[in-house]
Structures are given as structure tokens and as C-alpha cells.
């Protein structure tokens, strides 16, 4: 049972990574990152069956942190939107070289 759960979380993690690489919209990229975080939560929960409750405690921590991060992240995305009227990362490349 554990192996399948870990495999699933690994697959989810990979999907998240591919999402970040291929998509161009900032919000979708952020959602993919959240997906990766939740994949890790899944593996934590799976592992806690082996080593007792401390894994699940960790999940609670990651969830709260993810929430805080989401709040701040979206605020940043709104700030960038106010400037360039778009969240498409293709034309956000002022800083380069």
C-alpha cells in the first residue's frame, strides 16, 4: 500500500513540475506549485503509517505554510498585473542580461 501511495505522490509531483515548465500563466504556475506541495503532503501521510503520527503533524504545518504562501503569492501577482496588465510570463522579461 505504501509503495503505491509514494508512487502516486511522485507522479503528482512530476505533473506539477511539468506544469510549471510548460505553462506561461503566472497563476497556473502557482497552482502547479501548490499541486507539488500537496503531492509531498500525500507522501507524508503515506509514510506516517510507517513511523506514526509525526508525519501527519508535518502535513498540518505544510498546509498552513502553503496557505500563507498563497496569500502572499497572489498579492504579488496582482501587483505585477497592476503594472503590466498581464500575467503571461512571456512579456514579463524586463530584467535580463
Amino acid at each position, binding site marked *: 500500500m505504501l509503495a503505491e501511495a*509514494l508512487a502516486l505522490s511522485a507522479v503528482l*509531483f512530476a505533473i*506539477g513540475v511539468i506544469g*510549471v515548465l510548460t505553462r506561461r500563466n*503566472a497563476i497556473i*504556475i*502557482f497552482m502547479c*506549485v501548490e499541486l*507539488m*506541495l500537496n*503531492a*509531498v503532503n500525500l*507522501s*507524508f501521510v503515506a*509514510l506516517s503509517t*510507517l*513511523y506514526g503520527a*509525526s*508525519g501527519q*503533524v*508535518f502535513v498540518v*504545518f*505544510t498546509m498552513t*505554510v502553503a496557505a*500563507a*504562501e498563497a496569500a*502572499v*503569492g497572489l*498579492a*504579488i*501577482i496582482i*501587483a*505585477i498585473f*497592476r*503594472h*503590466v496588465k498581464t500575467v503571461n510570463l512571456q512579456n*514579463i522579461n*524586463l*530584467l*535580463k*542580461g
Partner: protein
Amino acid sequence: MTFDLANPSQLMQALGPDLLLIVGAMALMLWAAWRPESDEHQRAVGVASLALIVATIGLTIWYAARGLSSGPGIIAVDNFRWAANIVCLLGAFGAIALGLEYNVRERIRPAESHVLVLFATAGMMMLAAARDLMIVFLGVELMSVAVYVLAGLNRRSNKAAEGSLKYFLLGAFATAFLLYGIALIFGSTGSTNLTEIGQRIVEGNYVAHPMALVGTALLLIGFGFKVAAAPFHMWAPDVYEGAPTPITAFMATAVKAAAFTTFIRVWLEALPGMGEAWFAPVWWLAAVAMFVGNTVALSQRNLKRLLAYSSIAHSGYLLVAVATGTLAGSAAFLFYIVAYTLASFGAFAVVIAVGSEGDGNNELSDYEGLWHVRPGLAAAMSVFMLSLMGFPIFGGVGFFGKWYLLMAAIEAPRPLTTLAVVLVLTSVISAGYYLNVVRVMFMKARPEGAITPVRAGPLTRGVVFATAVVILVLGLVPSRVIGWSRASIPRAPVAQTASADLPK
């Protein structure tokens, strides 16, 4: 006096300085939000936060003086932690001090900018104290989130917003890897406490264990990103250029110092058993970081981006300390980070002093013939450049920093002589751009149209000359700091028998 961390009140005492800072920061945040935005308010909050930092430094020094230690638990109580705290607090102090005048010039009115710095510093102190991967994760997140916002502080510049967006997205992306690494390490060893992990890896000979291997790799990737080492450095130049200069200085020094502190503690306490696995990658990571950081810096025209690449190169040098995997390496790291922080802060302070409103005047061409107009600033800048390059006497303590690193590398059980040669040769490349700054300032005539930079505020000039003087003085008599950094090395919890070999 040894803290028994199982007992909550003792745990609270062990976290004394951290708590003082966090509680103070929250109080200040309320006060900041209470009054409408204005320059005076922002200055008042700034001064208050400086006072808070000084108090925390005082408490930390008092804690360090008492020679405390702790039993096994989620946090560590040793000189390494207090030393790292002091470095981060000094970084914060510098950032806020520069920020006070910089914000007025750039019309950044929100007083919360100083409070955010305090929160980031709280995160750093947590990282320094962390002896549990959970605390590491929390510290990293607390610090990063605060710094994501700080990077985008200047609402009116779209560069800042773009910088903070990139920092946020890539930061989150990398933290996911870190977290996944923690999960796998937890999966393979069954615990998140560094000492337990260390024991289990050594006993169970986990070096061949696939999950532990992948876990260590992911941890390395996570930390690699946080310290902006080479393959993971792409975000750094843009974020450093976009962020307000005091915050860039803060990111280049304090954030990097904290990240390395936890990196080294994890590597020394949890993963020495995995040495076989991570030695080559860390070796190559250091070499690539040094090479990429120094060569790309050669082609930079904007001074902030140049200093960004220089900080990437310095991450490479510090990775050499990690690669040694010895306690002497960690002492060398501490000494080097002090020298590096002084020099970087000085350099950024000069960038602020020379820069004009709207982050103008940061191009190398604006520095031509600066010596004829601002001899003091030019001389200070050349001291910082030579210190970053590691030049003796004129570069003061920078030289001894590199010296200590090289000595630790050569005297490591597995001598890194070739890496030392790589370090030395890449620092010759670094001479190319560091000296270029000096050359432009001293050897070129002041172009006619160039406007003489307006006289910087007292605090900025204070930071510039204070750091320059300290660098030069330490350059002559470094033994004080050497003794101090050799004493503050991570020490295993007291319960265990003292096994760590004494660093030379």
C-alpha cells in the same frame, strides 16, 4: 546550564532571543499599521526596529556568554547558532539603517518594510537554531515569504514587481523540492531530527538506500537554490536588480548566511554518513558556481547585477567550506561570511550613495572618474572590491577569509587541492571585474555631462566608512575574529558523548 528541551518552559528559555524579536516585530507591525503612511512614521518605525535588533543582539551575546548547551530536541543551543544569529542581526541592522534614507529617496512610504525585515530575520534565527527538518522548513518559509514581499516593496517600479514575482514562483518551486527531500529523508530514516537521522544513517549504512539518496539530492537542490549556487542561480541577478538596494544587500548577505547555516548544520549533523554520495556533486556545484558567477560578472555593466553575480561566485566559495565536510570548514564559513557581509554591505551602501532616485546612476559608466568627484566613496569602494577579490592588506579581512577557506580545503581529510586551485584561478577572473570597477573610478576622466552624485545621508555614509574601517582593521589583526569563529562550531547535543573532533 543545559536545557532539557522536552520541558516547554526550558524550550521557551532556549528560544529567548527569537521570541524577543518575534514579539517585538509583531508589536511594531501593529504600531506601523496604526498610523497613516508618512516619511516620519516610516522613520520612527525604522528606528524602533533598530533598537529592537540591538536588544536582540545584546540578549544573544548574553546567551552566548553563559556557555549554554541543550539536550536532544528540535532546536540546537550552541555557539554556531549564536554566531549565525549575530551575523543575520547585523545584516538586518544594516538593511534597515540603509533603508531609512533609501526609502525616503525612493518614496517607499509603508513602514511595514522594516517590520518585514524583522520577520525575515526571525525566520533566519529559527533556521540557525533548527535541529529538526520541520523547523528548517518553517524557518525557510518564514524567511522566504518575508523576503518575497520585500523584493517587491517599491510599488511604483515594475522591475521590483517582476523581480518579486520571479523570486516567488521559483522560490516556491524550489521549496517544493526541499519539502519533498525532507519527506524522503523522513521516509528512509523515520525521523526528522538531525541527530537521529545522522545516527540512523551511520548505523544503517544508508548510503546505498535509494530513498535516502534521492532525499539528500533534493535537499541539496533546495539549499542550492536558497544560496543561489550556480545551476539554480538564474533568479538571483533579476531579483537583486529589481529589489530596493538595501534589501538586495540584505538578500546577498543575511539570507545567504542563514541558508548556509542550516545547509552546513544539516550536512554536518544529519548527513555525514552520506558523504560518499554528496561529495562529488557538492564539489562540482562549488566549481560551477565559482566559474559561472565570476565569468558572467565580467560582462555586466550594471553594478547591482555585477554584485549579484559576485554573490553567486561567493556562494561557490562557501560551497567549498561545505565540501570539506569538517568542523574547520564551518569555522572557515563563519569567518568568511563575516568578511563577505562587511564587504557586500559596504559595496551596496556605496551603490546607494552614488545612485540617484529611481535606481538611476547604477551603470559602470556613471562611476567613471568618481575619484575626482567623491574621493572618499571611491577609496571605500575600492577597499570593498579588493576585499571581495581577496587581496591582502588593501582588501583587509577578505584575504584572510579566502585564506581560511583554502586552508580548511587543503587540510580536510580528503584534501581538496584541485578545488583550491579552481578557487584561486576563478578569483583571478574575479579580479577582471572587481578591478574594472576600481579602474573605471580611478583611471578614467570624469565625463563632462556627468552629474556629481548628491551627498548621501549620514547613516549611509556611516555604514560605508564603518564597514571599510572594520575590514581594514581586521585585515591587520584578524586573530580576534579567527578565535571567535573557531570557537563557534556546531556542537552535538550534550547527552551524546562529545565526539566531534576539535577543529584546528
